[in-house]
């Protein structure tokens, strides 16, 4: 088993809700609430969940684009030394950030319209004072070819490109410094289906060529399932399940995972089933329900779910499989099993 590249322990990010004249916090939105997981060198960890589940906030904490409220983020550098990311000062952080880059969701708002493609892709090089102008131009040309664009594109501006091409530019920028970990935050959700597939394939090819590690965040379970080695499911700021993508698909262990799988419309008219969709909506994160935060919508919930909060635990006999459910080892999730057998 390969070594860990990133480990998150007890990560919390609370946003204050300020009210009144003195702007005193009247409460907190627990966007990320005690999240722990790790990412292995060279793998793709998918992160999936519905809007407001905290996946983007979690990613931003990992990159320290925002400061976490609590918890530690460890990163193992090329020399194998453990670095606690959230204890670094500005200069140290800048050094480490060369290794950790991000691709954003919206290729329309994440590229500055007044910068040429050369300016955009070479910005990280300039910030880190790597090479002179000529060397930078060579590197940009190389990166453009790498992501399937042409060297002459560096003189153009973002508005001259389609959505898919812009996302390629965003990827080239993320790769400029030869990172080891790339956080992809909904990288294909703004793209058309036919172009989405191109970008997914590109990300897979780049991973193979450059030995990249991905943290791939998306709301689309089919995309996440397709690209990830392991998948982490989040609900209301918490991790409810982590498993290899095969295991997650074949035998989901958390009722919410099952509900997500059941909800995705499958592009196959012969596999239509009469499904009972999950009732209700995600509760208000400023006032989450007590006990298991999913119990209000869970068809399998019992008394214990309302009173005590389940902990994310490795399943007995199933290494690498983490579930936060009181009944993980005893209940059979019947809905999904039935659907699978029809496929």
């Amino acid at each position, binding site marked *: 088993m390969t070594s860990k590249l990133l480990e998150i322990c007890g990560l919390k990010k609370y946003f204050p809700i300020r009210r009144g004249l003195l702007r005193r916090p009247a409460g907190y939105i627990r966007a990320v609430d005690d999240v722990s997981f790790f990412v292995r060198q060279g793998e793709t960890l998918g992160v999936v969940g519905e809007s407001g589940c905290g996946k983007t906030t979690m990613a931003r904490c990992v990159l320290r684009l925002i400061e976490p409220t609590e918890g530690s983020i460890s990163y193992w550098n090329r020399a194998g030394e453990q670095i606690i990311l959230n204890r670094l000062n500005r200069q140290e952080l800048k050094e480490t950030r060369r290794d950790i880059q991000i691709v954003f969701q919206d290729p329309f708002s994440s590229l500055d319209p007044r910068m040429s493609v050369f300016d955009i892709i070479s910005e990280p090089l300039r910030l880190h004072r790597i090479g002179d102008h000529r060397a930078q131009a060579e590197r940009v040309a190389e990166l453009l070819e790498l992501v399937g664009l042409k060297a002459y594109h560096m003189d153009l501006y973002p508005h001259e490109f389609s959505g898919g091409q812009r996302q390629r530019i965003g990827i080239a920028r993320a790769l400029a410094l030869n990172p080891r970990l790339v956080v992809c935050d909904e990288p294909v959700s703004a793209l058309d289906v036919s172009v989405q*597939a191109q970008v997914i394939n590109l990300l897979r090819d780049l991973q193979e060529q450059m030995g990249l590690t991905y943290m791939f965040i998306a709301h689309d379970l*089919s995309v996440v399932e*397709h690209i990830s080695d392991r998948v982490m499911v989040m609900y209301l700021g918490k991790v409810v399940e982590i498993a290899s993508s095969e295991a997650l698909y074949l035998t989901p262990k958390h009722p919410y995972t099952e509900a997500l799988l059941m909800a*995705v*419309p499958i592009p196959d008219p012969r596999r239509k089933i009469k499904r009972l969709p999950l009732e209700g*909506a*995600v509760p208000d994160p400023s006032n989450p329900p007590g006990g298991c935060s999913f119990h209000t919508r869970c068809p399998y919930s019992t008394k214990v779910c309302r009173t005590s909060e389940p902990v994310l635990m490795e399943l007995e006999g199933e290494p690498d499989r983490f579930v936060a459910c009181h009944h993980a080892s005893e209940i059979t999730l019947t809905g999904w099993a039935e659907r699978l057998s029809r496929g």
Partner: protein
Amino acid sequence: MKEVDDILQVRNLRTYFRTDNGLVRAVDRISLGVRRGETVGIVGESGCGKSVTALSIMNLVRPPGRIVAGQILYRSGDGSTTDIAKLHPNGRQMRSLRGNNIAMIFQEPMTALTPVYSIGDQIAEGVMLHKKLTRRQARERAIEILGKVGIPSPEKRIDDYPHQFSGGMRQRAMIAMALSCEPEVVIADEPTTALDVTIEAQILRLMKEMQSQLDLSIIMITHDLGVIAEMADRVNVMYTGKIVEHAQTDDIFYNPKHPYTLGLLQSIPTIGDKRRLTPIRGAVPNLLTLPEDVCYFAPRCPYAMEICAQAEPPMYQVGTAHQCKCWLYEGNEVVAV
């Protein structure tokens, strides 16, 4: 095609936009039919003209756009036929049809509902207008329909404003509004795209329930082939303003004929399938720069032939209730429009 059954029939519709940069043929000679009680899907990527098709049927195309040619025949329950394309968008006849006989569900419930009126007032407005009910009767009707679409304690929620509703509830409210006047046809333009998957599943289920209760005809417009598979009886695949394939839903997925349809199907990841995707090369072209009378898909098509860049293919009959606009099927019977 048994045209007698069609409650709505679009024939050779063209909706063009005259912009400063040139003419955009957003909808270009499309024909489709909708039968009573069925769901017809229109699927395609951004800019293919699927939303403009919806707006055309509602006669809501705004300048610089205009319905240039074609017919939109609506056959109402009493047997009379109206050509919507001939009606003035703001005329009396169109206004009595719109919302009353043909209603629309929009993608973004937050932008389609006005924030300054309560949900109840917004529903009651249409009911009072079309059904000549008093304010009190309209309010009762609004409560009833909100309950029907699954809003808990509707008699309390009716006075709420849209911002007090969650995304899924807003979409339910919008469906309630669309159904409030008991229309025969509902056009749903990406009704679940802005929603989370678990909420999407609820809304799709609700639409199916409403359909069977009210014998609705639904035009389901979406980019999501999963939603199409789940909902549609028949499917129209659109690309750059044209319908390129039309078939029963099962045929679209198991016997696709047009290279674009095939390309779309091979582009989508399916849960449990890790095989490498086969994307369509290139990107959707800019409608402004397209030449007339060629196949617009040819530059991206793996099967493109010489003729594809020279002439526009006609619609061929390629199977039972299955048509495809592609030169690969030359020799088959040409469908008259």
